[in-house]
């Protein structure tokens, strides 16, 4: 495979590639190293460089930038309201229900019946998101750390009583890691042993 790749360097854009500085390290490593994993590692980096070289030619420019001037705020807001109204009207017609006032409309194909909130699954109840959600929004790089920090609410007790999760104000999770389940399982086993 490496052989093929080296040939590729000689192919069409080779001169260009080299002047962009792509593959430099790769070549050096071919010459001086026969360790498979190290070479592979460098290949990965150099593919990234290829991408940067081709697509992000002016990468030292600031990414945070305003391209075409200020947005037409008021008009945007007006259009948004218009569409929101239209969407609301359409869904009211479709479902025969006035979603704004929460009352059934007459003469529709659906019959509506009131259900007390205690009888519906937790999913349909309004959720209060606490401040602890900010811990989870640290961004991709910090994700594992964030999960550890917020690990507490996902103990086995909470797993067993899902409906309580929302009503007690515990944050609703975005994504489940397999390790979360390991963690709670471990705790569960330990506890039963103690008991």
């Amino acid at each position, binding site marked *: *495979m490496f*052989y*093929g*790749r*080296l*040939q*590729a360097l*000689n192919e*069409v*854009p*080779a*001169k*260009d590639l*080299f*002047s*962009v*500085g792509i593959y*430099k390290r790769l*070549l050096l490593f*071919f010459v001086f190293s*026969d360790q498979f994993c190290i070479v592979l*590692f460098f*290949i990965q980096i150099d*593919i990234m460089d*290829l*991408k*940067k*070289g*081709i*697509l*992000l*030619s*002016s990468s*030292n420019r600031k*990414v*945070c*930038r*305003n*391209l*075409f*001037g*200020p*947005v*037409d*705020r008021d008009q*945007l*807001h007006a*259009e*948004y309201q218009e*569409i*929101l109204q*239209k*969407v609301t009207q359409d869904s009211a017609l479709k479902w025969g229900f006035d979603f704004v006032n929460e009352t059934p409309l007459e003469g529709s194909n659906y019959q509506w019946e009131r259900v007390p909130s205690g009888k519906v699954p937790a999913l349909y109840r309004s959720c209060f998101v606490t401040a602890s959600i900010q811990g989870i929004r640290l*961004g*991709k790089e910090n*994700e*594992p750390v964030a999960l550890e920090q917020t690990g507490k609410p996902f103990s086995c007790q909470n797993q067993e009583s899902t409906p309580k999760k929302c009503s007690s104000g515990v944050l609703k999770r975005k*994504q489940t*890691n*397999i390790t979360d389940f390991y963690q709670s399982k471990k705790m569960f086993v330990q506890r039963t042993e103690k008991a």
Partner: protein
Amino acid sequence: MEHQLLCCEVETIKRAYQDANLLNDRVLQTMLKAEENYLPSANYFKCVQKEIVPYMRKIVATWMLEVCEEQKCEEEVFPLAMNYLDRFLSVEPTKKTRLQLLGATCMFLASKMKETIPLTAEKLCIYTDNSIRPGELLQMELLVLNKLKWDLASVTPHDFIEHFLSKLPIHQDTKQILRKHAQTFVALCATDVKFIANPPSMIAAGSVSAAVQGLHLKNVDHMLSSQNLTEFLSQVIKSDPDCLRACQEQIESLLETSLRQAQQHNISSETKTLDEEVDLSCTPTDVRDVNI
């Protein structure tokens, strides 16, 4: 202490393995049928837009790609966002000043569709140098969703790449490199106006065959020779071989143009290192003889 020496550049997001059962012909046929529903109109600059011209799309696309790269988004996010953007512009005359807001909104939606931890509205607003506010992004989100008829499950070239790779007689490790190259070409195509009309399957096939040529894999198997591969892939996507060849050539010429631009940029920014690198360009001939 030892564990701190581990390479930390691995993905932090846990992902499932590719389901090999989905790489069958039935799925491929369904995708080929479905992709038609998500094609933007080819000539929206002429027919729909009054203010927006092709070079503005290039500007906003470049910015979007930079944001996706910096945020380490999944590869699919950028082409998917560009598909939303083109589909929106195909039906809605848009002001120039709203184009960046549209681009940010499309990334917002595409990221939510494809990523485990999606981009936040706040982050995207920072990338516009705070020229838009999160509230406006959310308002625009509804406008975009409404225009796209809430149908965000566009087929992207990435969906096809895996199918094509599974059909080629290539070693797993080479596949990894080939995939990366093809994905880079797909992103490159998404930035260029010329490829708006091409269906994702065509872009994917063109990118894969351009990558095979670029990596000089044709000696690995006779099936990978330029002509055989084009014939084969055009059958897979049920297209004319000449069309595919034209698409591949377009990709290669776009690649060349982009490389030249990158080169010019590099000349202006790093003139002093150039001599050293020109020297290096003779190296591969020697290195090829090294037995690994």
